[in-house]
Structure formats: structure tokens, C-alpha cells
């Protein structure tokens, strides 16, 4: 394969544009005559709205309009509701509260939209928003996850009578208690999986215009098709083709940018309402109180082991804090997203799993890099460390005894997932060797001489990838032999402009530089475009392109046969050239000919333009997996942790571009380390978000991280033609478990076996002090 083919570390096509300031993000787009939107957001976490007085705001300079949820409702605008439906074991449905685009008589979290002001300038809109007088009647609020689940907690949705949306269980608990009772060793862990604020670097924004009965809106999304459909149906009451969503360059996604947020509905609706373009430029403070948050679980789990250190039973109870409303995927994350992979890389036959999604006076939570899988893997790895302690086995040995072995694939998990392939022992061997695990004691002794506590930790993980089960990709070859990919996927940092061009060079022999990517515009993207999330693009987009390319070759073969006065059966295709006997024509020549009807077999449409609608079994995923090892040093006097060394062994299946996949690993690991080390979302008892800016919220910075050595243990996926597995979320799955394991290893002299994330200096120091005091006493 040439230097731009599959598997090559090709440098990115998109980079020159983005490095020279020529990227085009939503905020770079302006429409003539646009107004500016400013949202009036609730400063209270929980309150009844007694009245909203917009008169002063309406009279303010430059103001074009002030609207509330009542105005939207009067226009027939509907409500948002979660996609998720679950039943408990008794057959009772999950509670599904409806959300207005702007709340009308009640606020349920700080930052919830109460009104919107439209004015000629942004400054005028913001100033007038301050003049909207909302009379709130405060109610007791629920800021914490544990409190939300407590019977003593105030209830946020009276019509449901409880903050618990459902008590979902995979099976009756008694079925597993029988097995647990036979265990020789039983260990339990209690874990808080901390809430994080995803924070893509581009704050959310939108600009819309209403023209000739059609709405056009620019907004950063992860693929706009579903948003287009939602806006058309729920907000505008229009056919979907009258709504156009364009997501040009997008400054990061991480799972949370693909949603139909209330702001998008308001900006769309308002443009038609005032018949002028509307622009909203969210600032970072709004990001914090309106972008969906991630994680936020409390887990209690018990593992039973036999005399050989083999797991005989596992029980997990999860509370997930879904915020004030169940977002699109909210309760799905612990159940379908992560929970059903909770046994992880381990062969565990008897598994009880209970989830209680709770409502609270906080920002709703939804998909964030990994979307349930980092939580699930973290939980399993903490259990394995606890099991190592309890059995006296080494941390790697307890894992070796329990992982799914190569001969067990395809392996059907207790939750029904079919893992096609993996080399879990191989991952561990490779990572431990690269990390020089065997030589760790000498390094620990060296650190100790400097007064530092050194620790090493490892974490295994596996995560179902693939997201929604459909995608459409199209390839159009021009008469000049150049190709345009019309993608249903959406790149917002993943480098598709580069990788799709590599694929076309490989499949069709079209030179890398002659491939252009079109994406992110609902008017021209494929009809069945789904988008990019859930580590799905290499599979759904890559295989979709492969099948489209196959169609190009099939059609091209017939045209080539005509041109070469041969039969299609005698024509072969390789590296951009069709051959029959001694004759040959290039794909470019065939493309040119395809636009001239005289060259075409009877009945053939002109052009060389093919798409493929890829549909897979919704229960079929691929299973990226790996082992990550990290070494840290803790300063016991300061509680400060320094990351020294990180080995990531990932099985992402066939790697299409190692340069780009490495980048995905580094970024995922950084988000995992961020969650484990620095990122703490704090709500106080009144439901106020204390960490509402980059001043207060600990984003991981360059100084927090070390270099990451990313290695591949490539086991091709058996369920797709390219052999690819996902890569985008793996790092976030592997990092937290390895990090916490390493820190606890460093602190084992104090008897410290767990500290909840994030392991901030304050927390680590306080835990050390407490342990020391306990010893003294």
C-alpha cells in the first residue's frame, strides 16, 4: 500500500486550514441584519415562577423582542422528551418528564432558560436580559446524587412522586444471592464516579435565518440530521427538508454536541418569529450551566470469589444522577451504555445489576466520551484491586485468572453482548513489559529516597462501540477522476478528511489529494446520515465507504467493458485501473466516459456516483479493549500527584491511520486522567453550581500530564469487513482505573485502599492525614 494507503501515518489534510486561521466555526458566520439573542437563565435551582415581567426589557435600547416559553407554546412548539424507555421487572414504565424549550412555571436547575431577549447588538441583548424581572418562589433543592435518591429528599416532579425514575434490574437479585453465598471471599466497593463538565473548547452557539419559508441554522453538532428532524417536527412544524442545519468546523464534540438543546430550538423559532436572523454566542459560563454534563454515579458493588480467585458472582447497584430532566440518553448510559459491559474483560457468569436513575436540581447528564463504559470499567477494576487485596493475589494475577480467554471467543456476556475477539492476557503482558512492571520496586525505592511515594497501577477495559446501527456514505467521482465523499459521519477533530481520502486511495486508487470531504450540511449530506459518536465512524463510515466504492467499481467495470469492447466478467480492477486482456482504462477515463451517454450500456444512468446505506444488527457492536499502566509519584506532604509514565496498549482492531488513532488515545486518556485527578463538579446543598468557570473547574492542563506511550495490540474485528474497532473512547475507559490503582499503590503504606475521584491534592492530603491519625490512635 502506498504512502497514503490504509494503515499509514498520514499527516492530516485539514491541518493547514486550521493552522492558518482559515477554519470556519459557527461563530465565524454572520447573516446580514442579524439580531443577537441573550438568554435569561434561572439563578435558582428549584423554584416556582410566579410571574415574568418583560416590560422593562422590551423598552430597553435596541431590543427587538422578548419571548418566554408561553410565547413558544402559543405558537404550537412542543416539548423535549428522552429517547429512553425502560420497564422494571414488574413491567412498570420509567417516568419520562417533558421539557419545555423555555420553562414556563417552574425552574429545576440553575441555568434553565426562562426567557430570551433579541436585540440589535449582543451588548444590548445582554443588558436587556438583566431587566427581565422573574418572580421566583423558592423551593427546597436537591444538589447531590445521594440525597436525590433518599426518601427524605424533596421531590422535583410531584406527578411522579419520587426522584427515582425507575428501579431497573437485569434479573431478580435472589437468583444471584444463591451463587454469592457460595463464595469463599467476598469484597465490596463503594465508589463515586464524579460528575464532569465536558467542555469542548468551542462554546455552544448558533445563528439562524428564515428565508423563503425555509430555516437555515449554523450550529456546532456531531452531525445535524437528527437535530434537523427534531427542530422541524417539534419546533417549526415544518417538513424536515425546510430546515437546514449546517455544522462547519466544530470545536470538539465528546458526545454532548449531538443533541437538540433548548437553545437551538429557541434560536430557530425566534428567527421566524421576528423574521430576522438570530445569533446566539454562548459564553463559557453558559456552557457550564447548559451543556449536558457527564458521569455522576454512585456505585455499590460486591464480588464473590472461590478458593482459586475465580469470580463466582457479581452484584452491582448504581445510582445515576440524570439532572433535572432525563436527557436524550440520560438513563440509558448506565444500563445500555456501560452497564451491560460491566463484567468487562472478565468471564463472569452470575451477575445482578440494578440501576436507579434519579432526578435532581442539576444540569441534565448525557453522553460524554465513553457514555457509561468508563464508569463500568472503572467499577470492575476497583473490584479487581479489592479482590487482589482480599485474596493476597497480585493485581495482575487476579485479573489473569478471570479474563475471557482467546478460545472463548465469540463470547456471549451475561447481558447478551457478543464479544467477537480480543487478546486480554496479551494486552496485559504487552503493557506490563513496556512499563517495566518487573523493575518497579527499584524505582519505588529510588523515589522513597527523595521522600516521594511511588505507585504503579493497571486497568483493563473493553467497550462496545458503534453507536446507532445505520449510516450512509456516498462517493461521487467527477469527470476529471476526482472524488467527493458525502459523509453521513461528522468529523470534529477526528481527521476524517484525511482518513476517508486514505480509504478512497486504497479502494479506488484515486490519489489522496484528489479526494474532498463534504459533511455537516443536512441539505447535501446523505439522507440517512447519522453522525459521529460512540466510536462508530471507522466502522459505520469506513465500511459504508468500502461498500460505496465497491458499487463504483461494479458500475465502472460495465462502462470499462464497453470502452474496451470486452465483457464485464473479463474486466478486473486494481489500483485505479480496469484491465481486460491487454487493454486497460483508468478510473478517471471511465469516470469521464460515464458522463457521456454513448459510452454507457443500455439503461445505465450517467455518472459515477454511488452511495451505500449501511445497516447492522442493532445488537451488534465491536469491542475495542486494552490495558493501560500508569506510574505516579505522590508527595505525601502536599498530596500532590505527579504522573510519571503512561503505557496504553489498545486493541482498536485494524488501525487505519496510527497517527490519528494515537491522537484519539492521547485525548481519551487526558479526559480520563482529568476525571481522576482534577475535574470536580460541585453543587452545593442549594443546587448552586460552585464550579461554573475555568477558574473553579479543574480542566487538565499540560502540566498535569506526562507523555503517553500508545501501543497497539491489533486483533482485527471479525464482524466488519475492514476489521476495525472503535478508538475514540478507549482512553477515557482505561485511564481512571489505572490512575486510581497507581495512587492507591503509592499510598498502601498508610493502609489507604481507595480515594474517590478526583484525587485532588486536598483530598489526597486529607486522606493521608486521616490514615496517619488512625494509626497513631
Amino acid at each position, binding site marked *: 500500500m502506498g504512502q497514503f494507503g490504509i494503515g499509514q501515518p498520514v499527516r492530516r489534510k485539514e491541518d493547514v486550514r486550521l493552522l492558518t486561521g482559515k477554519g470556519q466555526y459557527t461563530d465565524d458566520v454572520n447573516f446580514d441584519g442579524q439580531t443577537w439573542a441573550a438568554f435569561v437563565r434561572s439563578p435558582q435551582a428549584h423554584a416556582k415562577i410566579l410571574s415574568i415581567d418583560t416590560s422593562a426589557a422590551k423598552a430597553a435600547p435596541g431590543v427587538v423582542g422578548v419571548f418566554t416559553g408561553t410565547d413558544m407554546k402559543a405558537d404550537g412548539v412542543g416539548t423535549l422528551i428522552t429517547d429512553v424507555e425502560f420497564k422494571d421487572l414488574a413491567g412498570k414504565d420509567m417516568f419520562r418528564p417533558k421539557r419545555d424549550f423555555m420553562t414556563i412555571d417552574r425552574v429545576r436547575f440553575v441555568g434553565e432558560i426562562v426567557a430570551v431577549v433579541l436585540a440589535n447588538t449582543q451588548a444590548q441583548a445582554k443588558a436587556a436580559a438583566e431587566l427581565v424581572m422573574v418572580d421566583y418562589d423558592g423551593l427546597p433543592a436537591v444538589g447531590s446524587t445521594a440525597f436525590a435518591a433518599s426518601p427524605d429528599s424533596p421531590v422535583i416532579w410531584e406527578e411522579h412522586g419520587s426522584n427515582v425514575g425507575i428501579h431497573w434490574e437485569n434479573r431478580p437479585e435472589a437468583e444471584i444471592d444463591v451463587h454469592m453465598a457460595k463464595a469463599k471471599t467476598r469484597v465490596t466497593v463503594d465508589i463515586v464516579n464524579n460528575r464532569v463538565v465536558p467542555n469542548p473548547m468551542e462554546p455552544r452557539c448558533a445563528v439562524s435565518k428564515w428565508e423563503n419559508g425555509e430555516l437555515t441554522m449554523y450550529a456546532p453538532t456531531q452531525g445535524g440530521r437528527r437535530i434537523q428532524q427534531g427542530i422541524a417536527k417539534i419546533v417549526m412544524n415544518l417538513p424536515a427538508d425546510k430546515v437546514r442545519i449546517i455544522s462547519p468546523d466544530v470545536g470538539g464534540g465528546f458526545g454532548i454536541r449531538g443533541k437538540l438543546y433548548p437553545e437551538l430550538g429557541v434560536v430557530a423559532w425566534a428567527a421566524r418569529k421576528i423574521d430576522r436572523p438570530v445569533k446566539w454566542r454562548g459564553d463559557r459560563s453558559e456552557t457550564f450551566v447548559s451543556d449536558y454534563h457527564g458521569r455522576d454515579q454512585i456505585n455499590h458493588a460486591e464480588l464473590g470469589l472461590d478458593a482459586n480467585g475465580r469470580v463466582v458472582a457479581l452484584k452491582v447497584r448504581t445510582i445515576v444522577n440524570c439532572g433535572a430532566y432525563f436527557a436524550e440518553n440520560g438513563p440509558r448510559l448506565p444500563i445500555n451504555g456501560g452497564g451491560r459491559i460491566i463484567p468487562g474483560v472478565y468471564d463472569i457468569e452470575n451477575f445482578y445489576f440494578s440501576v436507579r436513575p434519579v432526578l435532581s436540581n442539576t444540569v441534565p447528564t448525557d453522553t460524554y466520551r465513553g457514555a457509561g463504559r468508563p464508569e463500568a470499567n472503572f467499577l470492575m477494576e476497583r473490584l479487581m484491586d479489592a479482590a487482589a487485596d482480599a485474596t493476597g493475589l497480585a493485581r495482575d494475577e487476579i485479573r489473569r485468572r478471570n479474563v475471557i480467554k482467546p478460545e472463548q471467543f465469540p463470547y456471549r456476556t451475561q447481558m447478551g453482548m457478543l464479544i467477537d475477539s480480543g487478546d486480554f492476557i496479551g494486552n496485559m503482558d504487552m503493557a506490563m513489559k513496556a512499563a517495566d512492571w518487573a523493575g518497579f520496586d527499584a524505582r519505588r525505592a529510588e523515589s522513597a529516597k527523595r521522600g516521594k511515594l511511588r505507585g504503579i497501577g493497571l486497568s483493563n477495559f473493553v467497550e462496545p462501540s458503534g453507536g446507532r446501527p445505520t449510516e450512509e456514505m456516498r462517493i461521487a467521482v467527477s469527470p476529471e477522476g476526482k472524488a467527493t465523499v458525502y459523509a453521513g459521519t461528522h468529523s470534529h477533530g477526528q481527521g476524517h478528511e484525511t482518513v476517508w481520502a486514505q480509504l478512497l486511495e486504497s479502494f479506488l486508487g484515486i490519489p489522496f489529494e484528489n479526494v474532498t470531504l463534504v459533511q455537516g450540511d443536512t441539505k447535501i449530506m446523505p439522507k440517512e446520515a447519522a453522525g459521529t459518536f460512540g466510536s462508530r465512524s471507522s466502522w459505520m463510515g469506513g465500511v459504508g465507504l468500502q461498500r460505496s466504492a465497491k458499487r463504483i467499481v461494479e458500475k465502472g467495470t460495465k462502462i470499462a467493458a464497453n470502452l474496451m469492447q470486452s465483457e464485464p466478467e473479463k474486466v478486473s480492477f486494481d489500483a485505479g485501473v480496469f484491465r481486460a486482456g491487454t487493454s486497460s482504462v483508468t478510473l478517471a477515463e471511465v469516470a469521464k466516459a460515464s458522463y457521456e451517454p454513448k459510452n454507457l450500456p443500455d439503461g445505465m444512468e450517467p455518472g459515477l456516483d454511488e452511495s451505500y446505506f449501511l445497516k447492522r444488527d442493532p445488537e451488534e457492536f465491536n469491542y475495542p479493549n486494552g490495558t493501560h499502566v500508569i506510574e505516579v509519584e505522590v508527595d505525601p506532604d502536599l498530596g500532590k500527584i505527579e504522573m510519571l509514565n503512561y503505557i496504553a496498549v489498545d486493541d482498536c482492531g485494524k488501525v487505519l491511520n496510527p497517527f490519528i488513532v494515537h491522537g484519539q488515545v492521547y485525548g481519551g486518556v487526558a479526559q480520563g486522567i482529568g476525571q481522576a485527578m482534577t475535574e470536580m463538579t460541585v453543587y452545593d446543598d442549594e443546587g448552586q453550581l460552585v464550579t461554573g*468557570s475555568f477558574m473553579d473547574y479543574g480542566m487538565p492542563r499540560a502540566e498535569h500530564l506526562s507523555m503517553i506511550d500508545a501501543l497497539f495490540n491489533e486483533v482485527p474485528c471479525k464482524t466488519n469487513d475492514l476489521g476495525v474497532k472503535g478508538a475514540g473512547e478507549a482512553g477515557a475507559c482505561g485511564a481512571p482505573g489505572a490512575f486510581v490503582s497507581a495512587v492507591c499503590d503509592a499510598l498502601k503504606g498508610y493502609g489507604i485502599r481507595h480515594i474517590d475521584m478526583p484525587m485532588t491534592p486536598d483530598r489526597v492530603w486529607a486522606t493521608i492525614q486521616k490514615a496517619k491519625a488512625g494509626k497513631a490512635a
Partner: protein
Amino acid sequence: MLINVNMTINGKAVSGQVEARTLLVEFIRDHQRLTGTHVGCDTTQCGCCTVHVDGKAVKSCTMLAVQATGKSVITIEGLAQADGTLHPVQEAFREHHGLQCGFCTPGMVMMGVDICRRHPNADEHTVRQELEGNICRCTGYQGIVEAIMDASAKMAGGKA
């Protein structure tokens, strides 16, 4: 009341009338429509808006447009040569995968140039410390740190 401002941006003399509160970044983005410079926060933390003012890296969200009167401002659009040849720091970002979504990138590159000028042959520790005021959510900083170290060595070696 509007105030006259005059400065050079990327070598070109520009002027305009701004409100006293207009930030330099607003003047650059909204008045001059140079949209390569980005705004990623409202608390001077993220560094997406970093430009050079009289040769030094400055967060343009934290300086008033009027304060830039008479000064020379370089934005990301003015970094490459006129023929399109990338600056060594831009080239190194491309070579080391120092960017993914590209949003923090202009600020990172402008900061990177500043670091390279002040720290020939910068080591990893120095680069990580110097990037304290620039946040990236995509790359884990790995490619960014490698790129700045590489560019710093090349610039010190007189190759650029």
C-alpha cells in the same frame, strides 16, 4: 461614545471606532473579521484568543482595543509567509498532530511561537509549564508539547 483606534494587524494599518469597553479580540473578530482568533472562555483561562502585541503573546480577551492603539498586532492569519510557507511552529503542529478540532489551535500556536522565542531548545517541563494558560480538550497536549519542543530546537538551530 465611540473612540478611534489605530493599530497595525499583520502588518496592515487598520483603524476603527469602538466603544470603550470593546475588547481587542472583539475588534479583531467582529470589526476586522479576522476569525482565526477564537474565544473559548470568559475568564482569561483558555488562551484560545492569544495573539502577539508588539511581539509578545497576549490574551486578546483581556486587553481593550484602545490599549492596542499604536501597537503592532499579529494574529494567526499573519504568521505564515505571504507565499503560504508555514511558520516552523505551524509546521511542527502539523507534523506532531498538535491539533484535532482546531479551536484552541490558533492560541496554542501563537503561544508556542512566544515560548520558542523565549526558550531556545525548550525541554518538556518548560513547555508544559509555559502552557499553563492554554487549554486543549482534544489532544492530551502530547502533540502540542512535542511540536513546540521540536520547533524550539529548529528555531534555535537557525533552520527557520
